[in-house]
């Protein structure tokens, strides 16, 4: 589905994603409602705040074969690299590389106005931590011509060949449809 980025449309989009899961797999939604809502909010908020676009795209399905939820949130905005450039942040580390931009983002380097404190930032780094460490899922981000992949035993960024160049950012997440023992969403909020 596509959605506008005003607050009513984003709220509707989040509710629709959850309704969709509720229809196909209500017990999974019951288990994962809070972390999923949290994840949707953060990913969509990143589009609102950084992508400089007027629309987002979202897709969710329950994959019965692997007993997992698969989520895609995307935009055709200025890419993560573009958002650092637009904010004039960390340009010394960034070079001209989408891969370096993804590396900075996954390591919590903010484009916000007070980069020395947590300030308003949350971002990809905490999303990855919750999905991979907390929920034993997999996280991928495609932005420009770089692809970040992180799962339990592997983390890397691929600088892609020039023929692959996504004009925006796409986050793909797979979360097992069961909550690991000891998972506590509060551990990922601070």
């Amino acid at each position: 589905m596509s959605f506008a980025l005003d607050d009513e449309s984003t709220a509707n989009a989040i509710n629709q994603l959850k309704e969709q899961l509720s229809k196909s797999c209500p017990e999974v939604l019951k288990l994962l409602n809070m972390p999923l809502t949290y994840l949707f909010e953060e990913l969509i908020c990143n589009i609102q705040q950084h992508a400089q676009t007027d629309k987002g795209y979202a897709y969710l399905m329950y994959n019965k074969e692997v007993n997992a939820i698969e989520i895609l949130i995307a935009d055709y905005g200025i890419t993560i690299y573009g958002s650092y450039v637009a904010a004039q942040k960390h340009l010394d580390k960034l070079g001209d590389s989408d891969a370096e931009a993804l590396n900075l983002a996954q390591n919590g380097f903010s484009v916000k106005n007070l980069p020395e404190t947590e300030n308003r930032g949350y971002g990809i780094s905490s999303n990855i931590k919750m999905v991979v460490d907390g929920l034993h899922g997999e996280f991928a981000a495609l932005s420009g011509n770089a692809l970040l992949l992180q799962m339990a035993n592997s983390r890397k960024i691929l600088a892609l060949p020039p023929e692959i160049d996504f004009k925006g950012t796409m986050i793909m997440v797979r979360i097992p449809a069961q909550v690991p023992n000891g998972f506590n969403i509060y551990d990922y909020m601070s």
Partner: protein
Amino acid sequence: MKQIINIQEQYGAELHTRQMMERLAASLDSNNEYLLDMSGVEQISRSAADELYNLTHSNMHVDLINLEPFVEKMLSAVTKGRFLPRRHLAGDMPIIHCATIGSVQRQLMAK
């Protein structure tokens, strides 16, 4: 006398966006005092909580009452975040340069 605003009635049980809280802030009069009744608000995004923090630390006279556990935790996380140094705990990720589609495929297969 403080005016009580029931947030759940006006904005729902889930506060997803920063804009919602900006809209709330814009609706308030700086000459009045407000109590925001948060009962029934069970979910709040970090962005909305951050905006709520701004509101309660602005020149507006706004206090929060009846916070649900998740909302309380989120506001606490946001408040702490304002004073903590930013941490870069994840460290650098290895960057692998793939010159061809074939090398991308190999990397994807290797996981």
